[in-house]
């Protein structure tokens, strides 16, 4: 599997009236071709902001991407996304990298026909003629499973159900044969049956078109269904990175462990209470000097208050940012 995207030490800050919000504090990860990478974490953990930062979608001011690089191995060679001009970024966005947002209800312009919203992307990026774009748009609508695509092409968004709108958003995202689709909580606003349909659709498109998917979510249940690898975000940092099965079976970070404890399990025989993680997320206004999870951690000890833990390898393709070895129940010595 060839490397597609290398993000190194991404730092994003928001300069607000209340102070500087340290939204992303040095995030590094890789994405391979055709891989599905899930990013999980609670609200404000920086999972969305990090993706928006990559594509220059952070509103400036107040936000600013202050450091790092994002090397995108595109057909035009390796390009640092953070250094592109806004015109070059326009070509990457929707062209090589598609985006699907959480709120499909609001993500389509209510007074433009659905078909026209698909064709405008095609015309801009692929320089298709109007008729070609129309034909391709109908093809795309079929691809994402919308019945009667010819008729639906001329509909307005209000004539679509929530799930169908999300399908249209997916059609727009994959319209120009992108290498990466970033899906920002694409199933959160949908009910469970539609969620399952979306996951199936994404899987089918991934296998058919070979698109790499970055799936942002806070739902670990959905992650198990689609992802190969998972990044766990906490306080604007990656605290754990693992293959999906490995993560569920051997969580190495107390936060990940806590998240899994908070999930109901269908396979356990005895009934048990769901455990919530005590405390609140870290205040990102305060610059980080120690482990961001120290305040809520059961295994916290002296070192956690003095240093920021870096990512340790704890297994094959398994990294965690914790000084405590959860499996053995001892402090790591390095």
């Amino acid at each position: 599997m060839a490397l597609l995207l290398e993000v190194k030490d991404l730092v994003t800050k928001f300069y607000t009236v209340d102070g500087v919000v340290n939204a992303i504090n040095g995030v590094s990860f890789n994405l391979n071709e055709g891989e599905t990478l899930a990013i999980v974490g609670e609200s404000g953990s920086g999972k969305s902001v990090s993706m928006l930062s990559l594509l220059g979608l952070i509103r400036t001011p107040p936000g600013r991407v202050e450091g790092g690089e994002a090397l995108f191995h595109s057909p035009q060679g390796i390009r640092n996304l953070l250094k592109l001009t806004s015109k070059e970024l326009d070509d990457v966005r929707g062209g090589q990298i598609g985006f699907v947002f959480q709120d499909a209800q609001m993500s389509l312009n209510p007074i433009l026909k659905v078909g026209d919203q698909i064709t405008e992307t095609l015309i801009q990026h692929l320089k298709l003629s109007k008729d070609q774009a129309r034909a391709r748009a109908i093809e795309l609508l079929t691809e994402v499973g919308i019945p009667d695509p010819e008729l639906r092409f001329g509909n307005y968004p209000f004539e679509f159900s929530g799930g169908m709108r999300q399908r249209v958003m997916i059609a727009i995202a994959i319209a120009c044969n992108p290498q990466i689709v970033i899906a920002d909580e694409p199933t959160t606003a949908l009910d469970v049956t539609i969620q399952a349909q979306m996951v199936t659709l994404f899987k089918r498109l991934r296998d058919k078109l070979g698109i790499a998917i970055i799936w942002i979510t806070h739902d670990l249940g959905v992650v198990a269904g689609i992802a190969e690898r998972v990044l766990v975000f906490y306080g604007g940092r990656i605290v754990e990175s693992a293959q999906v099965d490995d993560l569920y079976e051997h969580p190495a970070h107390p936060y990940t462990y806590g998240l899994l404890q908070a999930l109901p399990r269908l396979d356990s025989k005895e009934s048990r209470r769901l455990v919530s993680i005590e405390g609140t997320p870290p205040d990102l206004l305060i610059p980080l000097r120690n482990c961001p999870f120290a305040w809520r951690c059961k295994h916290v000890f002296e070192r956690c208050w003095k240093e920021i833990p870096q990512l340790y390898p704890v297994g094959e393709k398994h990294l965690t940012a914790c000084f405590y070895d959860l499996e053995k129940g001892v402090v790591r010595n390095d």
Partner: protein
Amino acid sequence: MASNSLTPQSDSLLTVQHPFKDKLSYLFRLLRRDKSGIIGLAMFTVVLFAAVFAPYISTWDPLDQELSASRMPPASNVAGSWSHPFGTDSLGRDLYSRVVYGARVSLTVGFFGVLIAASLGMVIGLIAGYFGGRIDTIIMTPINLILSLPYLLFVVFIASILGRSLINVILIFGITDSPVFARVVRGEVLRIRESAYVESAISAGARWVRILFSHIMPNLIGPIITLATFEMSAMIFYEAGLGFLGLSVPPTTPSWGNMLAEGRKYLANYPWLMTFPGLAIMFTSMAMNLFGDWLRDVLDPRLRRARK
């Protein structure tokens, strides 16, 4: 069809691409379903017809004086005659013909005044709203200043400096009314610019030109049309007001405002001198309000469904 079960409201005409002719017939089908819209359109057509074909439907030259027959009552009165159905004014001019010709001034001022105000206001509002920040402050400060002035007083002041002519009246209304459009457009642009669909268009690679012209501008049509109809009827009112104060078109031009001004002196004894131009103003403004309301609903696909 499977899709129909999902959206039972969808109109088969809405779901297919249509040439212009079909669209037009569709608009008329929508119009037929809406009583107030059709009444408004009919009333507005009457006024428009009067303005366009004034020479053919008037019975007298509106400037022809006949002093021996001055201040004749309307035909309903025993002293009236059908040769002057609305009666005559103090110089013996036929009131019916003058009311008919008056529609020309009112509609011209209303239409071109609003056209200028809306275009100017849209450009100003778009720039202020889209670019925001310091540009917004620089543009909106004088706009808010103008809006804080008492409107009629402001217009009277400019009109008395510029003097009486049709072009002046149109320009005065067009320019002084543009801040109203500018402010509404700016507000809409601010709202749309932050919307999720603009954000998702940007994330699909849309450049600012496309954001502006294909996402923001079409969303402005509804609010602008609504505002334009209200502003147009307001402008017709204000034009009549200016005419009443002797500041609108020259006194020789038959206009409803001028007729009100002339009739005021004789209101106690010859009320019809003011009644007929007054009714004409009311009729026109009502027509536009009814029609404009319908037009706005038709232009907004979201409301189109609700309206059915």
